[in-house]
Every structure is written in structure tokens, then in C-alpha cells.
């Protein structure tokens, strides 16, 4: 049991991990992440990579939606922009991932800033539809700009290259994706303790007051759109390297909804939320499959009959979290922590 956090300087107080315990746990977590690909099956490794990509994208969306309070239904399309950019660059110029990834992120950020322009004049519901319009238009571009995107046929991609190495397996990609996800999350966490993060939250909580207090709304809303799209673009690029084929149908509106659902279920506006949400929402369908498999002996043909339940469960998770635990899994996690911190003195 911990009684209090002894802090001896402001620098300690501003640190991310304030206590020794926290640092130890973080170390253990990193060790687990490092060991993970050596011990698990290819299937779990695949899921691990998928979660890593989802974490990057969800963290980005959280910057925009959770921290800055701007609704976006464009995350999927932004990922598409990143994916197409990286594939095109890689195929045309045989560039390494170290080059294509940041370029994909930057171009997507630019697109994001343009899409974010209406946010200066409209809010909330109107903005949601405006971003949806952007994703419809981007989808059209993916289909019809055939000289770059190859239209509906889609683009194929060779193995990613990085520092002269071929990333020809999930195992190798894992060691690219997970560190990038860690960097992405750390970046978001750092942002939160500087003027930029505070300005984002101020815009979310009371934009007009923030403006009077010196926050330039134009700059910060667009910065948030840009940053969030940068994350989406990088995630999209990794997605492309991971699946090695992209078509316009790879990034439908459902992807945007998936990520919104992930940050809601995880907990909006927190750093932990998008991580938990991305992992949870990726794993839920897999868990359901396992569950239906277990029910097979009881309900004949359960795998077939219960298949439509996936959509229902997805919907129930969204509605259920919003109604009963609006702060998401992050809040549940905090409660668990509090429980164990006081344990065994209070149960």
C-alpha cells in the first residue's frame, strides 16, 4: 500500500511517472512487449501488430475529439490518404519506410488541416457532417485518380524496407509498429503537459473564454486537425505495409466509426483511453468468435447463428459505455488501481 507520493521538486511533480512503483510497472510492461513476439503464435502476433496500428490511429483521433472537442468522421479516410501516399512513394521511388512514413503523415496532416477549415465556422453536429463529406470526397479520389491509386483494383506493395532490411514478416514489422505506437503515445502524453495540450483542452471546454485568454482558436483547431491526421496518416501507412494491398474499400466510413467507438469505449480525453479502447475493440470480435466456438456443443451451429450478434455487440458496447461508464475503460482501470492501492485495508 502506498500512502502518499513524496515529491521534492517541481520537476518531479511534472514527470509522467511520479513514483518508483509506476516506473517499475512500466519497465515490466516494456519487457512484456519485447518478449511478446518471441512467445506467441503468429495469430496473436498479428493481433498485436493490428492493435499497435489501432493505438496510433486512436491516439491521434483522441487528440482531435477527446482533447480538442472537434468531432471527426474522417479518420478512416485520413488513414487512406496515408496508406496511398506511402504505397505510391514506395512503389515509385523504392523509398525506405523511414522516408515514406513521415511523408505520408505530413501529407495527411495537410489534408487534415484543409478538412478542418470548416471547424472555424461550424461546430459539433455540422462539423461531423463536414468531415463526413471530406471522407466521401476522398473516397471518390481514391477510386477515380487511377494514375496514382489504380482505381478499384487497388495497389500492391512489396515488403517494407528499413535501413537496408526487408520487413518481410509480422515479426519484423512488430518491432517497427510497437515502438512507433509507444512514441505516438508518449508524444501525446508530452503534449498534454505543455501549452499546446492545455490550449487544446481549453478549446474543448470553453472555446470563447480560451480565445479571450490568449488562445488563438484558428491556430489550435487546425493544429489539432493536422496533428490528428498526422497520426492517422502514419497509422494508414503502417496498415498498408502490414496488409500489403490497399483498395478504396479498405477505408470505409466504418473505420472512422470504429475509431470513434474505440476512444469512447476506452475513455475520451485521456491518454490511457485510446490504448485500452483500441486493444479492446480489436479483440472483442476475436473474443466473440472464441465464445461462439465454445457454445457450439450447446447451440448447434452457433458459429453461424450467432454471427449477426457481432454487430449487435459492437452497438451495445458503444451505447452501454456511453450510458453507464462514459469515462470508459480508463476509468474502470483507475478504479481497479485504487482498489489495489488500498487493498487489503479496504475492499
Amino acid at each position, binding site marked *: 500500500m502506498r500512502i502518499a507520493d513524496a515529491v521534492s521538486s517541481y520537476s518531479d511533480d511534472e514527470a509522467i511517472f511520479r513514483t518508483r512503483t509506476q516506473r517499475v510497472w512500466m519497465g515490466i510492461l516494456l519487457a512484456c512487449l519485447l518478449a511478446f513476439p518471441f512467445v506467441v*503464435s*503468429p*495469430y496473436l502476433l*498479428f*493481433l498485436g501488430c*493490428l492493435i499497435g496500428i489501432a493505438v496510433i490511429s486512436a491516439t491521434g483521433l483522441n487528440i482531435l475529439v477527446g482533447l480538442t472537442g472537434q468531432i471527426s468522421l474522417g479518420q478512416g479516410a485520413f488513414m487512406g490518404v496515408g496508406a496511398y501516399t506511402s504505397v505510391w512513394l514506395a512503389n515509385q521511388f523504392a523509398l525506405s519506410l523511414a522516408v515514406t512514413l513521415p511523408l505520408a503523415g505530413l501529407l495527411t496532416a495537410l489534408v487534415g488541416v484543409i478538412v478542418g477549415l470548416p471547424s472555424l465556422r461550424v461546430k459539433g453536429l455540422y462539423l461531423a457532417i463536414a468531415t463526413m463529406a471530406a471522407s466521401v470526397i476522398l473516397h471518390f479520389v481514391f*477510386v477515380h485518380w487511377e494514375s496514382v491509386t489504380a*482505381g*478499384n*483494383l*487497388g495497389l*500492391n506493395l512489396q*515488403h517494407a524496407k528499413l535501413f537496408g532490411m526487408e520487413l518481410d514478416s*509480422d515479426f519484423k514489422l512488430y518491432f517497427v509498429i510497437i515502438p512507433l505506437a509507444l512514441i505516438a503515445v508518449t508524444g501525446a502524453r508530452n503534449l498534454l503537459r505543455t501549452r499546446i495540450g492545455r490550449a487544446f483542452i481549453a478549446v474543448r471546454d470553453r472555446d470563447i473564454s480560451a480565445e479571450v485568454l490568449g488562445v488563438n482558436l484558428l491556430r489550435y483547431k487546425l493544429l489539432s486537425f493536422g496533428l490528428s491526421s498526422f497520426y492517422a496518416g502514419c497509422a494508414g501507412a503502417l496498415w498498408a505495409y502490414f*496488409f*500489403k*494491398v490497399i*483498395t*478504396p*474499400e*479498405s477505408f470505409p466510413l466504418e473505420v472512422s466509426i470504429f475509431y470513434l467507438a474505440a476512444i469512447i469505449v476506452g475513455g475520451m480525453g485521456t491518454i490511457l483511453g485510446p490504448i485500452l479502447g483500441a486493444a479492446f475493440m480489436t479483440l472483442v*470480435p*476475436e*473474443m466473440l*468468435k*472464441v*465464445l461462439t*466456438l*465454445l457454445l457450439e456443443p450447446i447451440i448447434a451451429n452457433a*458459429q*453461424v447463428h450467432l*454471427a*449477426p450478434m*457481432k*454487430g449487435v455487440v459492437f452497438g451495445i458496447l458503444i451505447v452501454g459505455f456511453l450510458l453507464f461508464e462514459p469515462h470508459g475503460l480508463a476509468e*474502470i482501470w483507475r*478504479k*481497479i488501481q485504487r*482498489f489495489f492501492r488500498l487493498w487489503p485495508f479496504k475492499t
Partner: protein
Amino acid sequence: MKKMLAGLAVALLSLALCFSSALAEDEIVFGETALITGVFGFAGGELHEGIVDYFNYTNENGGIRGHKIKHVFEDCGYKVDCSVAAFKKIQAEYKPLFYSGDSTGFMKAINPELKATENTLMSGVSYATNLTDAATYTRSFIIGPSYSDQMAILLTHAANEQPGAKIAIVHSDSGFGNDPIKAAKVKAKELGLDLVEVITTKSGSVDVTTDVLKLRRKNPDYVLFHGYVLTPINEFMQQMRDLGLKTKFMGTYWSSSELMIMKGGPSADGYLGVMHLNYFDMEKSPGKEWDAMRAYNLKVHPDKASRPNFYMFGWFQGMVWAEAIGRTLDAGKPLTAENLRATINAIENWDTGGIASVPVTFRNNSIPVGRIFRANIAKGRYEPVSETITIN
């Protein structure tokens, strides 16, 4: 709190269970990403049942040369990342000999992975033209004519019936709908047909009135539909018939099922579909295997007296796999991907006992053969109206 821990424990336990299921020594494993949910779920579900029934039927009759079939599958609702996950999971655990993929996107995405597997070959629901590229898709094949070949078969039939006929193509704006359009344009020209109109509709289109207006002005002899499952086809046919047009309607495989066209009423009468398979309902039996299939279906699904053509697809797919394995074993060769591939490529004029409507010959990763069937609404069934049409 306690509930959550319990939930977690159950989840972990079930994961563990799922990875511990044992495999009997001489079983042959087939894998499948099924398509039970999602937009194409109604077709994919029937297809899946066709596969399942064929395997059960084979197992009840002694398996493939004594080997029992084990079938593992997962539903993914047409989502590529889910399908890839399912493939990896099934691959890691079972190393299946054959695998059925659930979308063109997935079959393309998985290709590098597939080539890296020890022994897995893949076919699936896609007839995408790309997949006929045998140099790239060394481990995949199509169980039927590609979309381009299907269009070519329909166009050939039209040219035979009415040389120089006026043709219009109506297709959806999707990867699926756009696939064979370029090839079809070329083919129409080659056959001396007059392509008067190509209409692209958005997928899930509601109002077809203006498209009908266009067709009315061009008054084509044939309208070819492609890229539809939840079709506006019926609406097209109805409005055009209401306008007194005598146009003949045609459609590719997915648009030639009983589920849609038969519900179209009198205006759908005479609709021409392309099929390399026979339908579940036929006036007279086309063969012994077909009888056996009907009998088996009646035995295990007494409530389902009729089945759409998607079910036939599933059954046929299982049959092709089993045939490839059977022939390879008969030749005394080990069941490796190379050997199975060679066996499939060598299949020529195979008589499927009435499951396929044509003698089966593999070429270019596919079976570029089909027949034209005509919808007889009064009798509620399709009837063959052409000889076998082969595309070179």
C-alpha cells in the same frame, strides 16, 4: 470488480482452449473465412452451408480415400483485417491444404502470406479478373469463369442469338462492379456487337428512373447487369417492361440467383444468367452427384427444400478440393502445394455428376467455361438454353 476478473479469466481460458484442440492423425483440414454477416452475408451464408454439407456428406461416405475432412472457419463479414486474422489463426493451428477466402480484397492481401505457407492453396467467393494472373497468384485459383469471362460468355451468347445486337451494360460503382467493364467493352467490339450505353450506378442505388429513361432512348436488345447482389435489377426490369421495352436481360453469376430474380415477378421472365454450375432446382436430374446432393440436403435440412445457386457454389468448391486431393493421392504423390496445384491444372473435362453444368477444365487459374440459363418465372426455376460456351 469481481465480475470483471471473472470475465477476464473466462476469456483467457477460452483462448487457451481454442489453441489446444487436437487434430487426429489422418485428418485433412480445410479452412474458410466465411461470409455470414455483412452486405453479402445472405449469399455467403448459403455458400458456407454448401461447403459444410459437402464435407459432412463426404465424411459420412468414408472421407477422401479414407481421410476424414476437418473444416475450420470464422465469419468476418467482408472485413479484410478480420479475414487476415482468421487466416493466420487457422494457418498457425491447422496448416489447411485448402482455404476459402471471402473477398477479392482479402485474396489479394493474403497472397504474399499465402505463398509463404507450406501447403495452402486458396479459392473463394471472388471471380476477380486479376486472380487469373497465374504468375502472381501462384497459390490461388477461381472456381469458375472470371467476371471478364462471364461477361464474355454472355456477350457471345447474345452475338450468337442476334448478331450485331445493341448492348447496354449496367454495373455498380464498386471494385466488384467495375472489374470486367473494360474487358467487356473490348469483347463486345470483337464480337461485332453494338455497345450503346454503359451505365454506372452508385451501389445501393434507390431510384433507377433516369437510368431507365436512358435505356429507353437507346432501346438496346440486351442489357447486361454486373456487380449487384441486393439488386436494383428487378426495378430496372419492371420499369422497362412497364414501358413496353422488349429488351432481354442478362446478368453475371452473383446476379443470377433465385433469391432476387425469381422475386421479380413476370417482368423477370426470360432473364438470362451465366452459370458454370447447375441449379439446385432442375426440371430433370443432370447427374448422380446432383441427386446425391439433393438427397443429402433433404436429409439434414428437411426445412430447406430449395437452395439458391450460392449453395451449389459451396458444394462445388468442396468437391473440387476433394477431387484434387483424391487424384493426387491416387497418383501416389504426397499432398504438397506443388502437387495439388499440378493436379488442378491437369483437370480436363471432368464430369462432376451434374453439379457443374459444364465439363470442368482448368485454365489460367480458372474454369473459363459457362452456360446460359433462362429464368422461367412460372415454374420458378432456371433452364439451360445454351450449349457450353468456352472462352479462350
